[in-house]
């Protein structure tokens, strides 16, 4: 909310600096996101350059049909010559003048403001500028310049109109509807600084008229209170300048005296109001009811809304005339011809307003307040004060009043122990001080607790809520302590440690870690957002590689060399229940082909003390002949349609990887009885996989075969067509003795015999 400081001063006398006030409010009440200047900047003597002037001469500009050439008396020795484009004044008019050197504020069409100079306009000297209200932030009107009643020429304009103001940008939290009002913020300031708070307007009833207002409320759940007043014989016109200036400062556009007053009272007290043109209401009364499905209403913004039975509307005898608590209807709005108004100050249930506002994608100053919950006690007060202001500024006679409700809620009583506040906050505050703070905020001490003011009744219902009221005034005094611990949990789990090791291993292999969005344009998944914010972020991914392919492609385009990217992230797979199965995976892409990727995967497994189990595999992103499963995922060469060149890729499931890890390691004595190493080469058919040779060798040789690794595959004429030689190195070792040549021969024969039986392998000479 934008809060003009002059408006606050109506209710609390402030002499602290605004910067300090902003800090205190930010800590105790609501964040102050900034302090802006409304109107004319009050710096460098600028305000002194805005003066009242009296027009002594006014003739048509000799060289321009649309301009007037005037002489304006500013209380100086000589009147000044000023060229002006407006024609709504003449000799004798009292006007506002900005002198050369004055800076006028930015406005639509003049984004940087303007510093005036004495200059010639079409050959005639113009020694100042006669001002329209929009030029100095006093209104939206640019139909003509401002004309004042008789005032001494030379008088400071700032003494006549609210020329300059500061505006606090207050960001109140959702639990504080009371801070959606000037008066509510004044109340906080009075509490923080222990200042007096002026009585709120509208509380003292002035003679309520006896005339009736036809109000029928058909749904007290959704509309707990409806106050209606009728004022006859109003003259719709301009609001006073100060009201316009404040509304502009608060970010609302002045419209007409009646509408401005409803907004002014809403901003002051926090209770939204709406004025209907009574003549447009069929039957001359109000019916608060649910809409019927398909019923139509054109709201003030000109949009035709198709309503549902969950929408609450204000209706007359024939139709809906307002979307309750959100926006009035276009057909019943107050216009220049309006003579009789029906003023509404009501309470609409917050969730219903929220649902309708959501459904119609329509938020307004009113709906924002109702969603947070408006104090039902305010409706009466707001209606009275707005009515008084309408009679004062738009004339007319207050003829009728009605207040329909099904009983107003009592102010809640909450048990409260001051020592509980100390226990939660961790700093001592005397009970007297606690009740002083609470008192300034409108809480009344009674017995073993407090009575909550109506404007906080929604938010403050429990002792802890009272504690918070104390806490927010003590935040700067809260010390820095640490919990007294009886038990500690500060260790990473095995999986968390292994994840770090995995990440570090890939970094050691030259990979750069990247993060890509978990949402993709499309994926073969049921987990798709029905309303995504963009087509690119629609479906929860079931694989990470496509995102990495895109990242690699961008890097190729950017001219990067030695590209190697990895990501550790989740995939979202169909689950058994009504949630997806979320699995954490590591995926990577690296320059080089299949063997590069496989080398990376083997090293990752080795780093994790795990053994991969490679088998032929397939994946839609991988080369059909160069893809393998590992036991925890896939590795292969990227399909050439994905990226130009040879790229290795892998995607592995972390839980599966870590399950295979032999961490923590058990020590093996490899020193006392050294290993015997041999190289063996066998000739087999082309179709025999190296992995199968290794597996068969392991089975045949048993536990004494400690290492086996294929180091060469050879094809040549002397081997014959369809044959290949596979060479591998082996290491034999026993735990209890040093193996001798006979042992080595025995093991070697066992391997060769098994390979011969299994694959028809022959020992290569």
């Amino acid at each position, binding site marked *: 909310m934008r809060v003009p400081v002059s408006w606050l001063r109506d209710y609390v006398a402030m002499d602290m600096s605004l910067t300090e006030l902003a800090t205190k409010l930010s800590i105790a009440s609501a964040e102050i996101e900034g302090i802006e200047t409304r109107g004319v900047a009050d710096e460098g003597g600028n305000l002194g350059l805005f003066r009242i002037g009296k027009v002594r001469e006014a003739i048509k500009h000799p060289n321009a049909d649309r301009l007037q050439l005037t002489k304006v008396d500013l209380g100086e020795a000589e009147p000044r010559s000023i060229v002006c484009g407006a024609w709504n004044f003449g000799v004798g008019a009292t006007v506002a003048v900005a002198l050369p050197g004055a800076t006028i504020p930015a406005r639509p069409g003049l984004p940087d403001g303007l510093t005036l100079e004495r200059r010639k306009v079409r050959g005639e000297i113009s020694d100042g500028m006669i001002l329209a209200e929009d030029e100095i932030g006093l209104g939206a009107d640019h139909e003509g310049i401002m004309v004042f009643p008789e005032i001494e020429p030379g008088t400071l304009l700032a003494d006549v109109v609210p020329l300059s103001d500061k505006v606090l940008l207050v960001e109140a939290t959702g639990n504080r509807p009371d801070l959606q009002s000037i008066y509510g913020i004044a109340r906080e300031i009075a509490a923080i600084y222990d200042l007096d708070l002026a009585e709120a307007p509208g509380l003292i009833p002035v003679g309520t008229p006896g005339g009736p207002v036809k109000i029928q409320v058909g749904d007290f759940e959704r509309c707990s209170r409806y106050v209606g007043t009728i004022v006859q014989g109003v003259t719709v016109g301009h609001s006073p300048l100060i009201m316009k200036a404040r509304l502009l400062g608060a970010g609302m556009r002045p419209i007409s005296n009646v509408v401005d007053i409803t907004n002014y009272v809403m901003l002051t007290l926090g209770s939204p109001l709406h004025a209907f043109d009574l003549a447009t209401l069929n039957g001359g009364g109000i019916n608060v009811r649910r809409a019927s499905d398909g019923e139509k209403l054109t709201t003030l913004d000109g949009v035709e809304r198709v309503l549902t039975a969950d929408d609450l509307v204000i209706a007359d005898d024939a139709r809906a005339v307002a979307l309750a608590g959100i926006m009035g209807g276009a057909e019943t709005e107050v216009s220049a011809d309006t003579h009789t108004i029906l003023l509404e100050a009501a309470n609409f249930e917050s969730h219903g307003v929220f649902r309708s506002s959501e459904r119609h994608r329509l938020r307004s100053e009113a709906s924002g307040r109702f969603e947070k919950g408006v104090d039902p006690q305010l409706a009466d007060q707001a209606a009275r004060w707005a009515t008084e202001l309408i009679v004062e500024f738009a004339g007319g006679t207050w003829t009728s009043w009605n207040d329909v409700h099904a009983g107003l809620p009592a102010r809640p009583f909450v048990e409260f122990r001051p020592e509980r506040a100390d226990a939660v906050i961790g700093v001592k505050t005397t009970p007297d001080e606690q009740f002083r703070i609470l008192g300034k905020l409108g809480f009344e001490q009674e017995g073993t607790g407090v009575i909550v003011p109506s404007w906080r009744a929604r938010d403050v219902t429990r002792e802890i809520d009272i*504690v918070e009221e104390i806490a927010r005034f003590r935040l700067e005094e809260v010390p820095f302590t640490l919990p007294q611990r009886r038990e500690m949990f500060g260790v990473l789990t095995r999986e968390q440690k292994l994840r770090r090791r995995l990440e570090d291993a890939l970094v050691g292999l030259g990979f750069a870690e990247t993060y890509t969005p978990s949402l993709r344009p499309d994926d073969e998944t049921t*987990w798709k957002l029905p309303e995504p914010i963009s087509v690119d972020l629609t479906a929860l991914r079931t694989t990470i590689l496509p995102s990495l392919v895109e*990242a690699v492609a961008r890097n190729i385009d950017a001219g990067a060399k030695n590209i190697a990217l990895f990501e550790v992230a989740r995939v979202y797979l169909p689950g058994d229940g009504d949630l997806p199965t979320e699995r954490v995976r590591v995926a990577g892409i690296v320059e080089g082909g299949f063997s590069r990727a496989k080398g990376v995967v083997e090293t990752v497994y080795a780093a994790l003390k795990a053994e991969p189990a490679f088998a032929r595999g397939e994946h839609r992103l991988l080369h059909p002949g160069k893809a393998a499963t590992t036991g925890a995922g896939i590795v292969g060469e990227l399909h050439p349609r994905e990226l130009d060149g040879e790229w290795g890729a892998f995607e592995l499931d972390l839980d599966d990887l870590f399950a295979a890890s032999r961490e923590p390691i058990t020590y093996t004595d490899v020193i006392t009885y050294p290993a015997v190493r041999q190289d063996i080469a066998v000739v087999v058919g082309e179709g025999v996989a190296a992995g199968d040779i290794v597996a068969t060798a392991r089975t045949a040789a048993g536990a004494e075969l400690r290492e086996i690794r294929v180091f060469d595959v050879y094809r040549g004429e002397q081997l014959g067509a369809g044959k290949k030689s596979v060479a591998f190195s082996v290491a034999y070792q026993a735990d209890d003795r040093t193996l001798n040549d006979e042992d080595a021969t025995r093991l070697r024969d066992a391997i060769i015999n098994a390979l011969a039986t299994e694959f028809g392998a022959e020992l290569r000479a």
Partner: protein
Amino acid sequence: MTDTPDWNAYEAEAAAAAQAAASSDDLEEARVRFLGRKSDIALGLREVRDRETGMLLNGVRTRLEETFDTRAARLADDELDRRLRDEIVDVTLPGDELPLGHLHPITQIRRMVEDAFLGLGYEVRDDREVETVEYNFDKLAFLPTHSARSPRDTFFFDPNHVLRTETSPSQIHIMEEKEPPLYMVSIGRVYRRDAITATRYPIFHQFEGLAVDRGLTLADLKGTLLHVMRALYGPERKVRFRTHYFPFTEPSIEPDVSCGICLGSGCRTCKYSGWIEMGGAGMVDPTVLANVGLDPEEWSGFAFGCGLERTAQLRHDIPDIRALWEGDLRVLRQF
């Protein structure tokens, strides 16, 4: 052989020749002449018939061998020195290009956060990202009208399932799984329906801390956050609290950390306040404790959450959050 050579003179001549040799080749030539198979002393030794002469000649030969060895070592050193002097490289040329990878800045921040909390005796966890409305909102005591429940703010798959909007459901999960005392930090991806800008991305990371124990206070929260902020931003930083509102904490606060750019005097980064917003925090609301079956009179707790991207942006002065999501090696290789 007619004359008996003057072996003293021979030794002196040989030693002089060794000293005079300017290179290993010269020295070798002299060695062959004075100690080789056909040298006088070799021949002399071959013809020795008496013990005395034998000892004399052996003595001469041994001394000369030492002299030549010493000279040879000296010449070898000199020659090595000369050769190495010629082998000067341009030390300003680059070395071999070895692969070096990079952890993403978010991972680096994640580890810093984990380490800070491990030091405080917290366990580290992460929970599911697709959440039920029950865990994302209801059990965290979000009011039915809270704006986060709107599909305008939150990604809904259907009326009951959302992408979690904060890591706070972890609070419920751990409280349902274990008995207090609980001290945990949950770190992971969260999702909000924000348009992509320099400061907002619909997917981001949060860390969420929760402590549930007997007698915890707002002061304990303040001390904990001071430790964590100093771990993340440096020992000079200060922390202050501002009142705020969150459905699942009461009292709720927002912690600010003093601005590291202006050190509190006010600058563009801190919007001239001297302070930077760090996230949300507060004492666990009694309703949340009751929702998981804990007695709020016996147990109290505090909780807090902060964004990792924001932390990374502040730590590394990254103006545009999108840089963290594009996988651009020009960005990643800086970290």
